[in-house]
Structure formats: C-alpha cells, structure tokens
C-alpha cells in the first residue's frame, strides 16, 4: 500500500519538478531565440515565442558597434615609467569588433586565474596537509577566517591598492585577487590529507628531493582535486562581475560580461542586440560547464564536506 502511494506521488513530484526545470531554462531560451529575432519581433507587445525569420542583424550590430585592437602585447612593467600610467604597447593587433577582444580578454583572464590558482593551491594545500612546521596552524586558521568573510567587502580597498601598484585597468588587477582567495588552498588541503605518510616517507628514503616528491608522488594523487578546482575557478572567475566592474575601465580592456553591461547601459531598449551579446557571453561558459560538470560538482561538494 505504502509503495503504491509513493509511486503515484512520485509521478506527480516528477512532473512538478519537470515544469520548474523548464521554467529555469526559459531565460536562456529567451536569450538565444531573442538574439535571432528581428527588431519588430523583439519589440512586439505579444511575445514571439519562436522567431518567424531568423536574422543575423543583431549579431552584425554586436560586431559592428565598437572596435578594438585584437591584442596588445605591452612592454613589461612599462606602466611604471609611461607618462599616463598605462602600459606601453609594443605590438598591436589588427582592429576587430570589440566583442571579439572582450572574449579574448575574458578567456585570457579565466585561464590565467585558473592556472595560477591551481599551481599555488596545489603547492600550499599539500604543504598545509602534510608538512609539519611552526606557524602552520596559525596560517590555516587565517585562511578559514578569511573564507568566512564576505569577499566583496575587500574589493573597495583593493581598488586603491591596485592603483598604487599600477595594476588598475589591467587584467592583473582581476586575476591576482582571485588567485589570492584561499578557497583553493582549503580544497586541496582536504584532498591531500588522504595521501598516506608512508609513501612520502618512502620517497624521502629513496633520496627524492622535495620537488621531485611533489611531482612524481603527490601531484598524481591530488590531480582529481586540482581538476575540480580548475574548472571551478575558470567558471567563477568568468562570472566575477563585481571585480571586473571596479577594476577595468577602458573599452579595449573589458571582459565580455562588462562589455554587455556597457552595451546595455548605452542601448537600453535594443533588446535584440543585448540578447546577442548575452548569448555570446554565456553560451561558451555553459558549454564548458556541461562538458566538465562532473568535476565541477565535485569541486563544490569537496569544499563543503569537511572532515
């Protein structure tokens, strides 16, 4: 009797969840279809659920509005002696639509943040988990306390720090605070705890140096943790809008989210254009997420399940 009843209620539950899930995907559907609607369809008072004729006009506008150089390689540290405090470009790429440049900036930012975070966290997490030294507990306590505080509060003081270091309006200003955020160290530490001490002992007796031990013994064992951290950092830095907003200002230095926000501020009612921008910004990261979602969920749950 109980089993039967729960079967019927399970079916109802399933249908309700399915409906809610469809509602959750609706904004994304609306972005993607909106990007291909004509101005008339977008501004129709009766919603056009499916575009009658797919148009590329919004995409042409997105790519035509603003221009920026494809890339600029600046002379290292040149911001410290240049007159306006901006880095001096040594090589400048061809002029392309600004949206392309924003995408390049975003990918560069997210990849750099990811690589630096994984490298520093892997080393530090291993050290905190397996090395015994004075000050270790103090550092770990500091890390846990910092993680419990609201991250966004430090962003305002960071602006001044970045300007005095002459990082303001460069990608470094966005990347470095992400690398400094200690979540990764915490995550890898949890993971590295499970490395058996005997293996490390054996490596030492075999005469392996610290770096060699790390490369050949430790890293292979914490690799799944590093993978989870990598995808987690990539996605969260891609979407870290507040940080990008306060650190980056000139058109060529924007990230894709910032660029879309800027377009929205300037063309508030051209929803077709804005949806094309939103699709351009979000579809790549959604694809990345879907491909790596297993590692991603692992990253989230590992950080939470504390021993």
């Amino acid at each position, binding site marked *: 009797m*109980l089993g039967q009843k*729960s079967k019927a209620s399970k079916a109802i539950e399933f249908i309700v*969840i399915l409906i*809610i*899930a469809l509602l959750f995907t609706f*904004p994304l559907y*609306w*972005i993607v279809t*909106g990007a291909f609607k004509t101005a008339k369809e977008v*501004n*129709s*008072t009766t919603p056009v659920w499916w575009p009658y004729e797919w148009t590329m006009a919004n995409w042409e506008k997105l790519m035509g509005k603003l221009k920026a150089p494809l890339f600029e390689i600046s002379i290292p540290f040149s911001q410290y002696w240049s007159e306006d405090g901006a880095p001096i470009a040594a090589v400048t790429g061809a002029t392309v639509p600004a949206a392309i440049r924003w995408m390049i900036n975003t990918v560069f930012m997210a990849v750099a943040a990811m690589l630096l975070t994984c490298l520093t966290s892997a*080393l*530090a997490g291993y*050290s905190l988990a397996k*090395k*015994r*030294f004075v000050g*270790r507990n103090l550092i770990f306590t500091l890390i846990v306390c910092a993680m*419990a505080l*609201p*991250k*966004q*509060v*430090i*962003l*305002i*003081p*960071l*602006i*001044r*720090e970045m300007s005095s270091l002459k990082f303001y309006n460069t990608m470094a200003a966005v990347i*470095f*605070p992400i*690398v*400094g*955020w*200690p979540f990764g*160290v915490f995550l890898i530490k949890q993971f590295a705890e499970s490395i058996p*001490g005997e293996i490390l002992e054996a490596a030492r007796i075999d005469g392996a140096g610290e770096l060699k031990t790390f490369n050949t013994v430790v890293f292979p064992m914490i690799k799944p943790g590093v993978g989870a951290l990598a995808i987690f950092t990539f996605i969260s830095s*891609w*979407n870290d*809008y*507040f940080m990008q907003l306060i650190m980056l200002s000139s058109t060529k230095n924007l990230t894709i*989210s*910032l660029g879309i926000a800027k377009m*929205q501020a300037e063309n508030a009612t051209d*929803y077709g254009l804005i949806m094309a921008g*939103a*699709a351009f*910004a*979000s579809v790549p990261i*959604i694809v990345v*997420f879907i491909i790596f*979602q*297993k590692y991603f*969920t692992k990253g989230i*749950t590992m950080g*939470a*399940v504390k021993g």
Partner: protein
Amino acid sequence: MPMNKNRSGMSRALVRRETTAGYLFLLPSLVFFLTFVVYPMVMCIITSFFDSNMGKNTQDVFIGFGNYIELFQDPIFRGALKNTFVIVLVSVPVVMIFSLWVANCIYDMKPWLTSLFRVVFYLPVVTGSVAVTVVWKWMFNNYYGIFNYILKALGIISKPINWLGDPKYALGCIILILLTTSVGQPIVLYVSALGNVDQSLVEAAEVDGANHRQVFWKIKWAQIMPTTLYILIITMINSFQCFALIQLLTSGGPLHSTDTIMYYIYYTALKMSRYGYGNAMGVILMIIIAVLSGIQFKLGQSDS
C-alpha cells in the same frame, strides 16, 4: 597522537628541512593571499576611521568613529540595511526549503536524470549575472515584457505594471531573480549529502515500519545536518552580498528603494568618492556576517 610521535622522532635536521620545504611550498600562495586578501581587509578596517576620498592630492584625516556615527544617522544606509535583511530573510528560507525538496526528489532518480536536473538548476549561476539580468530586465519590461503579457492574458491585471520602476514591486522582482541564481549550489550539495546517507539505517527503519516522512525526518535530516548548516551560511553570505542584480537592474532606484548594503558601499565609494565612509559600511557588513555565521555555527554544534 601519531603527529606527536612523529615530531619527537624527527631529528633536528629533518625538522629544519620540513620547515623550509613547508614554507617554500606555501610561499607563492601566501604572497597572493597576504597582498590581495589580508592587506585589503586590514586596510578596510583602518580607513573606516578616516575621512578619505579617492583623490590623489588629498590627505586622509583621522576622524575616529565619525564615519560610524554618521552611518547610523544616514537614512539611506538604514534603508539599505533594511532591504538587505528583507532579501536575506526571504531568500534564505525559500532557497533552503526549495533546494532540499528538489534534491530529495532527484537524488534517487536514474543517474543521468539526476545529472540533468542538477545542470538545469545550476544553469542560471553559470549563465552569469549579466546575461541573466539583461534577459530578466526584458521580461519585466513595461511594454515588451512577457510578465505583463501573461498576467494580462490571464486577466490578473488590467494595465501593465512597471515592475522595476515601482518601489512596491522592484525589491520583489530582485528577490525572485536572486532565488533562481541561488538554488544551484545548495541542490548540488544536498544531492551529494543525501546520496551519502547511511543506507543500512534507512533500511533498518523501513523494516521497523517507519514511513517515508519518518525516515526522512528521523534519519536523513540528522545526517545531512552539517550540509544544511553549510548551505545556510553560504546562502546567507550570498544574499548579503547581492550586488550585480541591483547594479544592473535598478541602480538602487527608484528612490533608493532597492539599495542593499553592498550596492550602497559601491555607490558611496566609487560614485561619491567617499572611500572611508564606504569602508565603514564594509566593516559593519563583515561584523553582521561574522556574528550571524557564528550563531549558526554554535546552534549547529549544540544540535549534533
């Protein structure tokens, strides 16, 4: 115990080697952490006691608790504080209940279905605050938005509502969007926690004749308590920090009716260049979150 044994068994040279190696491995991470997290945190507290702006040629003037005294007399700050608490008080319970319900429904489905639902509920987070916000802004639009169309078609309203321009509705709209972007992580966490519940206990209870409800509250609920506590804290922190939605949708308007603390910090520090004043608000926010997290942590500990 094993650690103590290990330490006493180590020779002095080995201790030195461990210490050097330990710090060298920590160094790269520590440089970034101290420079870009700890230092700004300390500066936030210090400058909150100064009358300071972002100007290059002006000196900071020490004014003691001046900023804090002014804060509590500032009606906009009080409004922002109130809005922030409204957002937290509405969104935290709704997020908790909704995500627990969804997770409980989907965690024992076929693996591919569980994955699928998990991805779907996580989509608004991954889509990014800017893309999510611009599409909702369109959906809320007075003339071309689908909300007004649907409500009119159903006969619930007779003339379009200016959702984001009306102080009565604007905060509610923001909370609704915040909810869709907040449930992803809790659902992922709950699904994994429910999957880890000790099955032998569940089976034993079922053999003893416990029904679904009893099994859930008496057995599963106790086992997922640490996860609940964690979700409670992260959801609370996230709701307190609600910023992007406000900045992109309403800029705190109309008439500061949707200001949150985080948005007001941004507004005072960057738009009004009152840097010290903004940091004083940051300190207040830190204190509020630290106290609330502490209370929840204590409650969670005494529970288990």
